[in-house]
């Protein structure tokens, strides 16, 4: 596999012609320098972002951040309700989005007739959904809550609904890819032994695709964890001085808390915003690393 990357192929082709000097003309050296510079811009920004955030927030990254409630005095404030709120919302999002997303993907990939116009329409629709701005999903959530007559929009289940609908297309698309990677022979073998299609899907195809599904799902959830825009519409930027304790509880989340503190004038709150950012990015890093480990370790190559 590694032998056939384009870079290697070009190098081999170039070696075969026996001329290396063409690569050293001033224009091509300048071109390569520009390519390096492109990567440098991305990486330098990432480093600058990490360094400046740590420099501003490291002093406040302490136990108070985890145990204290927000306060009008920055030195006494903490992000405890936001951290718990994020856990509640993301947990609920996972419960809503994973079964639905996997079920939809299994239907589209294993059972649906792909040539049927309606299924093609569903596919196109999922593609479109994944490109809709996240803030629109917040509007969908408040529209839905208003429709079923829920007056108070700042509830955990409302936030989870917005985020679940937001990541549903992502989960469907990555699950479909994972299912597609399972070789046909496995399914045929199972069917030949007398298993029904449903049994084959449930006991052979799905278990083989679990690593791919897990990777895609973790990445989708980490996107939801960092998302703030749709939750703003659900009134999540509120002063919460209690631990959220249920699906109908009021909530705020870490990204929203960061936004709130960013907009405050005192420098002390900016330190808090930076400290919470470090914590949030740390959690996301762990989730991403986990996804990469699962991808590298458990994903089978057929």
């Amino acid at each position, binding site marked *: 596999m590694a032998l*056939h*990357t*384009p*870079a*290697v*192929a*070009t190098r*081999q*082709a170039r070696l*075969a012609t026996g001329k290396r000097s*063409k*690569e050293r003309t001033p224009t091509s050296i300048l071109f*390569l320098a520009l*390519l*390096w510079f*492109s*990567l440098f*811009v*991305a990486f330098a*920004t990432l480093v*600058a*972002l990490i360094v*400046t955030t740590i420099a*501003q927030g490291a002093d406040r990254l302490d136990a108070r951040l985890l145990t204290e409630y927000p306060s009008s005095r920055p030195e006494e404030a903490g992000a405890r309700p936001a951290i718990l709120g994020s856990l509640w919302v993301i947990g609920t999002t996972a419960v809503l989005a994973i079964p*639905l997303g996997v*079920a*939809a993907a299994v*239907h589209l990939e294993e*059972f649906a007739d792909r040539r049927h116009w309606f*299924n093609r*329409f*569903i596919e196109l*629709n999922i593609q479109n959904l994944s*490109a*809709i*701005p996240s*803030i*629109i999903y917040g*509007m*969908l959530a408040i*529209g*839905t809550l208003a*429709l079923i007559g829920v007056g108070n929009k700042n509830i955990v289940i409302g936030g989870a609904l917005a985020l679940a609908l937001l990541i*549903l*297309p992502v989960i469907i698309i990555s699950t479909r890819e994972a299912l597609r990677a399972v070789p046909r022979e496995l399914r045929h073998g199972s069917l030949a032994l007398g298993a029904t299609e449903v049994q084959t899907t449930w006991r052979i195809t799905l278990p083989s695709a679990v690593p791919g599904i897990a990777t895609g799902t973790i990445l989708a959830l980490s996107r939801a964890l*960092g*998302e*703030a*825009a749709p939750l*703003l*519409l659900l*009134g999540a930027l509120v002063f919460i001085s209690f631990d959220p304790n249920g699906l109908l509880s009021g909530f705020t989340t870490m*990204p929203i808390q960061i936004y709130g503190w*960013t907009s405050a004038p005192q420098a002390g709150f*900016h330190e808090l915003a930076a400290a919470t*950012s470090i914590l949030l*990015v740390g959690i*996301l*890093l762990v989730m*991403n690393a986990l996804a990469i480990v699962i991808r590298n370790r458990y994903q089978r190559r057929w």
Partner: protein
Amino acid sequence: MRLLLRLAAWLSILITVGIVISLLSPALQFFAEVSVVEFLTGTRWAPQFADPTFGVLPLVTATAWTTAIALAVAVPFGLGAAVYLAEYARPRARKILKPILELLAGVPTVVFGFFALSFVAPTVLREWLSVEVGTFSILAAGLVMGVMIIPTVASLSEDAMSAVPSALRQGSAALGANRMQTSLRVVFPAALSGIVAAVVLGISRAIGETMIVAIAAGARPQMVTDPTMEGATMTGFIARMALGDARVGSLEYNTLFAVGLLLFVLTLVVNAISIQLVRRFRQEY
């Protein structure tokens, strides 16, 4: 069992219908009070004033500027990174560089917004480059948004370039082209449909991005003629308005959905253009 699965797949249609209905019904109430022409051509946006006016152009110009600045950053650097990863990098370098780019894509947008506000505007722009910007500016928000979109453009166009068959590269090399010429004149045109799709996805992300502009671009809705100004984008307005306590059914509340509908339609149009362009430039091997 199968019926349940089918219902799950149909849910995606229901979501789209839900979005359209939940945007359309308050937006229609809005347009019953404000004429569509006034909304689309007016240059003064003051929905909360005693004498309210609803010209959406200030929001649109702010969105256009932030999107343009973001693309000016993301397209050249994203494509540069993609060409390097697809055509120059050895497998081992690629294995290290790609996850770092993915890391950049995983940073939450609030954190990018905070970075724009606390570092890019005061230090990079004002101190290092001595650009006259205030605390909030379209420029700082657009630049940071551009860096945020680099991974999107880079990773999709890299996929497209890697999918170009090696035979084309070998043929080009055999005719005496060097790697730069092969990349620019053979691989790039062959991968054009994927690259266009990557850029268009970048555009729709820039139009819809909310937190960076809400934090760093400012809140004053004005016609943006100069990127060092502050301005409220469509998403920035929605975010700020959502903080207030607009009563369901009030004109203020409906205004939110009118702007949301415009945003939704814009991204749909951009997507449709993308699908058309991809079809037009697609090459089969």
